[in-house]
């Protein structure tokens, strides 16, 4: 089903079970945050894990998704699904332009260009009137879903977030296991060879980039509705650093890695919050440790130990 291997299907069922049981054990708002970041990390992993493109500016698409969803929900009174979809489309639109520019260069330059473009978005957000500058957009209401189902209670919102996450997760899985996804993997493994086989690799990379940005925007929009706020933090490059770390800790190029990474890092942040800026130092140390000694990540190591694809 859906191109899952047996082990992946078991993993998926287990993940759905955890999502269903989760709110009985843990604080729902914390779980919603984890799910939003998990979707964001999965979207990022679609690029780095399956196309081999290291974007360093995904915070721009996530953050603009946040802003647009928050703004439309607050000022236009759009229903929840439309506001989130608009957030996603904003991410996709921005990604379409930025991807088109960045794909002109590869490797290290691609990373630097995406980072520089994202920094430009950040500076625009500081000045633009609709973002509210340093204050951000605050007190965003949670509009009803389809204009009818109230999302005021955290549990109702939780099911929406869970639904959005699962749809996004399955979409990514479907993309990766489609013929299109096979071409993406071919590009990752050996781009000149994929070109010689007649694939227009730049077009494939661009489409993957836009899809990833779309899902990042969706994740941002959902987060904006959960917390009722969109701020400059969401577009800043540190936000991107966090999502890279999540994907890295969980395991680049694994199906469940980014989800595990989002859970681990958000949980850790909760406990470390009292230590203030030690969070940054800890993140840095984890980055270094992962790159030097733990490149496969939690899920990657697990998969290697069990000789499975996870």
């Amino acid at each position, binding site marked *: 089903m859906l191109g899952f291997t047996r082990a992946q299907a078991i993993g998926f069922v287990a993940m759905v079970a955890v999502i269903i049981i989760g709110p009985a054990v843990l604080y729902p708002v914390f779980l919603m945050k984890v799910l939003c970041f998990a979707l964001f990390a999965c979207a990022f992993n679609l690029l780095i894990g399956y196309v081999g493109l*290291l974007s360093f500016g995904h915070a721009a698409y996530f953050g603009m998704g946040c802003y647009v969803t928050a703004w439309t929900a607050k000022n236009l009174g759009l229903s929840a699904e439309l506001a989130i979809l608009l957030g996603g489309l904003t991410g996709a639109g921005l990604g379409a332009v930025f991807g088109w520019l960045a794909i002109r260069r590869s*490797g*290290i330059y691609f990373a*630097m260009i995406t980072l*520089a*473009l994202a*920094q430009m978005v950040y500076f625009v957000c500081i000045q633009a009137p609709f973002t509210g500058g340093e204050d951000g957009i605050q007190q965003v209401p949670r509009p009803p879903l389809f204009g009818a189902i109230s999302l005021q209670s955290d549990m109702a919102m939780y099911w929406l977030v869970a639904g959005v996450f699962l749809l996004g997760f399955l979409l990514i899985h479907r993309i990766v296991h489609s013929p299109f996804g096979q071409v993406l993997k071919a590009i990752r493994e050996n781009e000149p060879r994929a070109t010689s086989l007649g694939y227009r690799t730049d077009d494939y990379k661009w489409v993957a980039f836009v899809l990833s940005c779309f899902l990042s925007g969706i994740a941002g929009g959902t987060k904006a509705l959960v917390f009722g706020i969109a701020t400059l933090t969401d577009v800043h490059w540190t936000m991107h650093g966090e999502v890279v770390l999540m994907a890295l800790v969980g395991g680049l190029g694994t199906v469940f890695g980014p989800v595990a990474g989002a859970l681990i890092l958000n949980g850790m942040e909760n406990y470390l919050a009292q230590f*203030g800026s030690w969070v*940054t130092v800890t993140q*840095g140390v984890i980055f270094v440790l992962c790159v030097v000694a733990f490149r496969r990540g939690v899920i990657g190591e697990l998969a290697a130990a069990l000789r499975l694809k996870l």
Partner: protein
Amino acid sequence: MITIFGKPLLLLYGQLTLGLINGAFYALLSLGLAVIFGLLNIINFAHGALFMLGGFVAWALLEYLDIGYWPALVLAPLIVGVFGVVMEKTLINRLYKLDHLYGLLLTFGCALIIEGLARNEFGSSGVPYPIPDELRGPLDLGFMMLPAYRAWVVVAAAGVCLATWLVIEKTRIGSTLRAATENAPLVQAFGVNVPRLITLTYGAGVALAAFAGVLAAPIYSVNPNMGANFIITVFAVVVIGGMGSILGSIVTGFGLGILEGLTKVYYPQASATVVFMVMVIVLLARPAGLFGKA
């Protein structure tokens, strides 16, 4: 009052010098990035953090050991350079056989650690660093008053850039370096200790960043965010110039700094983004960069 395109001349001169100073820092930082990238094939994300570290080392020398600006200008780059050598020996050299993206991630992690520690120790606002006595007060250039320290920064940065260019292009060690950039195994076969060359190159590139940090200390207060703010703009500068040519990095750095200064006078809203817009235009017109090889 004399005006140019409706702007007072003095305002124009003031912003041009500020732009020139920023340009000097762009040039020094992108030069170090280019030298490191050429040989190590990694983008040193920690470059901004090490620039900041240079400023803090200068401050610490003054605060705890009473060592002033002039010795610090030599000592701080040396200390940070040694720090860079240790970083290369213990961490970065594990990554040469891997995809270059791991180098970026590793140095990004190092940047987070250095900046986080600085923020813990000094808070976000940072500490002031006094202008050395010899360079206080203005210089009278006839058409404007130029703060002496700012003139010194531009001259010193340009001098160091030029010296670096001379070392790389005109000396024996420079030619070895360029040969190793082209083909490291072959150079090693000729009996050059390439791993040591790599280590020293990283140390030297990092020392350039620290030198810029000491120069910057009296202008901006020494604060934990000074590097992060700079480094992303420097990445754009590197994309614009292309990392193929040393002279290209220097010219692009100074040029973009001046352009930024001019934008501050004529259209201040765009001053933060102008470098990125230039990057977009260059990507459209000449994707390899102004001085890059396709």
